[in-house]
Structures are given as structure tokens and as C-alpha cells.
């Protein structure tokens, strides 16, 4: 569907001046990145829910996925929609905001207020665009650690997240084992598979093939590679679902018509749905951020940082882990979670692992999955007892 002339990207305003709280770091507090580049001054935008207790022992860091943001459980300032994980975060939920202090930060390289390609370089006043340094999952976690320091929190009660968020959870546990009491990596893997890199490359090529991408400098040139980014999102969205779920929801149903039109219009419901997904995504996301964050995921291989042994990444860890996968997730299949569990067992770590039966695919971790709620609640409650955190209301 053709769109009228591009309005200024809302997310671009959020990038420099987010609606949520933001911490600024000066040039002498720069981040040294895996690429060798140094980033500073820089900023990190975040949301918090609940109250930090007196001894600062009840903080939970939620790590968001590729296209998520810090607005876990409150209205998103760009879309006006409710937070992306209200099924898990809120009063009485597994991550109970009446009991815990929940933190979620926009990832480094993102476009919702933490430094990324959509930001303007505070030193030059120019948009970073593709001059922003390439970041890794470890860089993202390093930035989060600086935020946690600023908030005066030494040990996080729990670090949790799904997909790319799960990668951050694993990185946290490996890099800062003494700062993570409990960890919940969901629907994730300790490395990105060749197939996943392949899908990401399709998405990046779609963005870069859009003439409006302008070799990455579309912000300066006043264009937006919307078509390319929409195609990238459409392809990616298929990988978040499953064949049975697509069949259940759409089958071969036609969209508002009784018969095929013998054209390339969106005859099928699934086509119309994907086009909608692509369109709504470009309204809230920066195309270069998409390139950077998919790259960060592609580079992730935790074992590689530890001489090829994933178990070595968790050697001697006291962190208690709860790993969960979903039967119909083909982006991060159960075998990926099992590899994490094997490594944790080899490291003698405390680990729980559930595989949850669902046809909802990779996105199941974001959706209504009662078994996920029950297991995460059981895990969090027992970890809270071990941590000596009071029951709610006592």
C-alpha cells in the first residue's frame, strides 16, 4: 500500500531525547567496544517499575529482544500500545512489580534513547548513521552494567529475557557471574546459527537495496528506506511464527474477497498480514538500528570467548538458571537451549530447563503461555526465598 510523503520518524526524536529516564555518560566515561572503537559521550535510556528495597537486593533486569525497547510494562511513546511483556511483568505477575524493582534499558545500537545509529553524535551534532561503531551483545551488556552501577545496584536478583534478550542474559551470567543471582534465558541460544545469520542477511540486504537507504545516510538526506525495512520485517516475522500457527490463523484464506484477483495484490490473508507487519514496523524502528542489532546477534558466540567451551563460560558460577524453549520455535530450537543446559550441567551450575509445548513458534515467549508463567513463577519464588527476599506483603 503506497504511503503519503514520509513524516519525520517519531523514533528519531526518541533516539536523542527519549520520553523515558536516560543516563548520560561523559567523554571520559566512554565505552570501549569489542570492535576496538571507543564510544563517548554516550547515553542509555531505561524504564523502571516497582521499588528498589533498602538493601538493593530485589532488582530484576529485563533484556529486550531485537526490535523491543525499554517500555516493558507501560505505554510505548511511539506506538501508544501497552508494553511488550505485560504478560510477565506487572503486579502479581512472574516479575511482580509489587515485589521487585524491574529495570529495562534500550540496547546499545537501538533507536529508543540509548546511543545508536539514529542518534546525533553529541560532539559533531551530525547523525551517526553507519558511522556508529558496530556493537556486540557483550557491548550491549557492558552498557547495561554501567547503568546498573549508576543505579547503585551491585547484584541483580535476576536477569531475564527472550531471543536476543536471552543472549544478553547468558552474556551477563558469563561476564558478571557474581552480579547475577538468577538468570532466565528464554527461547535463545549461546550462538547464532548459520540459518539465523542467513535470515538476517536477507533482511539487511533488503534495507540496503532500498534506494532511500542512501548508503546509510538517509537521516541526513531526509529519506527513509521504508520499503526495504518493511521487507526485512516481513521475512523476519515469518521466522517468529510456525507453520502450524500460520495454518491455524490464516490457512489459504483470501483477504476481503471471494476469489483471487489474478494480480499481485494481497489476495491472501497472510500477505495482507505480513504487509501490515512491515508497515507498522517502519513507523517505530530505525533501519540502521536494524542492521546493527541483527549484526550483534550474528556475532554472538559465547563459547568462542571461552576457548570454544561453553561450559567454561559458566565455570564455578553460583547463578541459578532457568532455561526455557518452545517446541515449535525453529529460530532458536530446543536443541539450542539443550546445549546451554548441557554446558551448565558440565559447569556444575544450578539449572532448570523446560520445553514448552506450543504451536506459536519463537514469539511464544511474548505470548500467553500458562506453562511459562507457572515455571517462571516457581523459579522466581524459589530464587527469592534463597535470596532471603520477603514474601509479598510481609
Amino acid at each position, binding site marked *: 500500500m503506497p504511503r503519503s510523503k514520509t513524516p519525520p520518524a517519531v523514533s528519531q526524536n526518541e533516539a536523542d531525547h527519549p520520553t523515558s529516564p536516560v543516563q548520560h555518560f561523559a567523554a571520559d566515561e566512554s565505552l570501549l567496544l569489542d570492535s576496538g572503537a571507543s564510544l563517548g559521550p554516550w547515553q542509555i535510556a531505561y524504564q523502571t517499575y516497582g521499588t528498589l528495597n533498602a538493601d538493593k537486593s530485589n532488582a530484576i533486569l529485563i533484556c529486550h529482544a531485537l526490535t523491543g525497547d525499554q517500555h516493558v510494562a507501560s505505554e510505548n511513546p511511539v506506538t501508544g500500545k501497552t508494553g511488550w511483556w505485560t504478560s510477565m511483568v506487572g503486579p502479581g505477575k512472574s516479575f511482580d512489580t509489587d515485589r521487585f524493582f524491574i529495570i529495562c534499558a534500550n540496547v546499545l545500537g537501538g533507536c529508543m534513547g540509548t546511543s545508536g545509529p539514529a542518534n546525533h553524535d553529541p560532539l559533531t551534532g551530525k547523525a551517526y548513521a553507519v558511522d556508529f561503531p558496530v556493537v556486540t551483545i557483550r557491548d550491549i551488556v557492558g552498557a547495561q552494567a554501567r547503568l546498573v552501577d549508576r543505579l547503585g545496584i551491585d547484584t541483580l536478583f535476576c536477569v531475564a529475557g527472550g531471543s536476543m534478550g536471552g543472549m544478553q542474559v547468558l552474556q551477563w551470567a558469563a561476564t558478571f557471574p557474581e552480579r547475577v543471582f538468577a538468570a532466565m534465558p528464554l527461547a535463545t541460544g549461546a550462538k547464532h546459527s548459520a540459518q539465523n545469520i542467513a535470515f538476517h542477511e536477507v533482511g539487511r540486504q533488503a534495507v540496503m537495496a532500498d534506494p532511500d537507504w542512501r548508503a546509510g545516510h538517509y537521516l541526513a538526506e531526509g529519506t527513509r528506506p521504508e520499503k526495504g525495512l518493511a521487507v526485512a520485517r516481513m521475512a523476519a516475522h515469518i521466522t517468529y511464527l510456525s507453520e502450524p500457527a500460520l495454518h491455524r490463523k490464516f490457512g489459504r484464506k483470501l483477504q476481503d474477497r471471494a476469489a483471487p484477483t489474478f494480480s499481485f495484490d494481497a489476495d491472501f490473508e497472510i500477505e495482507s498480514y505480513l504487509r501490515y507487519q512491515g508497515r507498522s514496523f517502519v513507523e517505530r524502528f530505525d533501519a540502521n538500528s536494524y542492521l546493527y542489532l541483527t549484526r550483534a546477534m550474528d556475532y554472538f558466540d559465547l563459547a568462542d570467548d571461552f576457548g570454544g567451551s561453553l561450559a567454561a563460560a559458566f565455570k564455578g558460577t553460583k547463578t541459578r538458571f532457568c532455561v526455557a524453549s518452545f517446541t515449535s520455535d525453529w529460530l532458536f530450537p530446543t536443541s539450542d537451549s539443550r546445549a546451554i543446559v548441557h554446558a551448565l550441567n558440565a559447569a*556444575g551450575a544450578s539449572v*532448570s*530447563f523446560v520445553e514448552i509445548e506450543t504451536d506459536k513458534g519463537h514469539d511464544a515467549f511474548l505470548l500467553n503461555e500458562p506453562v511459562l508463567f507457572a*515455571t517462571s513463577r*516457581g523459579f522466581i519464588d524459589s530464587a527469592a*526465598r534463597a535470596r532471603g527476599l520477603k514474601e509479598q506483603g510481609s
Partner: protein
Amino acid sequence: MTEPVNHTAAAARVDLLLVAEMIERGARVLDVGCGDGILLDLLIRTREVDGRGIELSQAGVNGCVTKGLSVVQGDADTDLADYPDDGFDYVILSQTLQATRRPREVIEHLLRIGRRAIVSFPNFGHWRIRSQIAFQGRMPVTKNLSYAWYNTPNIHFCTIADFVALTDEMDATIEKAVALDRNGQPMRMTLPWAVWNLFGEQAVFMLRRGS
């Protein structure tokens, strides 16, 4: 070391209480084939152990994790190899040995992973079982072993005498052994193996590697 255990939820399962009484307080314990976590839960509550579990059935695992137990979905036949030597004080195989594909290798792993291995199993040498084969000529079906030959998950039954012979062969030392009679009551310690083998319905052994 053999303090009595509070009889609570698991009261009906004498074999579980026996296992619990064999375990030192605060020990690191791995329960292989932990089912719905009843033994792990008992050990954590009454023995304050650092307990972990492996369970094949996903329903069992999900139930355990919901209760706050550290349990992973896994298979005793394939997944024990991941665990490091001496990772636990005790590794328990409760009523699971007969369902493994390679029982000897499983026991070798138990002895490698734990300083002590505790194995409980139904005794196929019990006189009722012997008599069903001897006099009816049919594969035994009993109250505790209620499966027919064609649908049983129990593929490697042994008798108490068989198990003792295997521990000899594997150069493992039997530190403790208890047989339970028909009523689930421990039999007198002084009775010879042959009597246990005939009248014990279940057996619980505590082993360590080496002689």
C-alpha cells in the same frame, strides 16, 4: 548420619524415606529420574540439600520447576556424560534403573559423578515374580510392576543377587543395603542375600567406587 526423617508428604513411600535417611544434611544431591520431584522436595525440606534433578518426562520437569526445584529435561542413558566427576555428594537413581537402556553404564556414571550412588529398584527375584514365571508361565505383573510385557517401560529388570554381582564386577563397594518386604518394611539386616532376594520386593543400595 542416619537421623530419622520427618514423615510428611512422602510418608507412603518408605523407599524414599530410606533414601532420605542415608543422606547427610546440606549435601549436594542429583536425583536421576526425579519424576514429579517428591524425593527432591523431601530432601530439600528435611535434609537441606542442594538438590538437582533430571527427568525424562516433560510433564514431570514442568511440575518440578513450578515447585521451584532445579530440574532439567534429560535422559539418564545419554545426558549423564555431561556431568563432571565428583560434582555431587550423592547421585540417586530411584526406581529408574530398570527403565534404562544401558544400566551398567548408568551406574558407572553415578559412581563417577557422585561420591556415593544410591540406587533403588524393584527386585525381580521376589518369590511372587518367580512363581508367576515358574507356575503360570507368564511374564509377571504385580501391584508395583503393573505393566504387561508389551507396554512396559521397564526393559532391564534385575534381582538383588544380580545387582550385587554387578557391583562386584564393577569394583564398587556396597556401603549400605536395605530390602523392603511386601509391606514396604525394611527386612532384618542379618538375613543372608538369598533371603532378601526371595522376600524383598524392593532394594535400596548405597555404593561408592573402588573397594
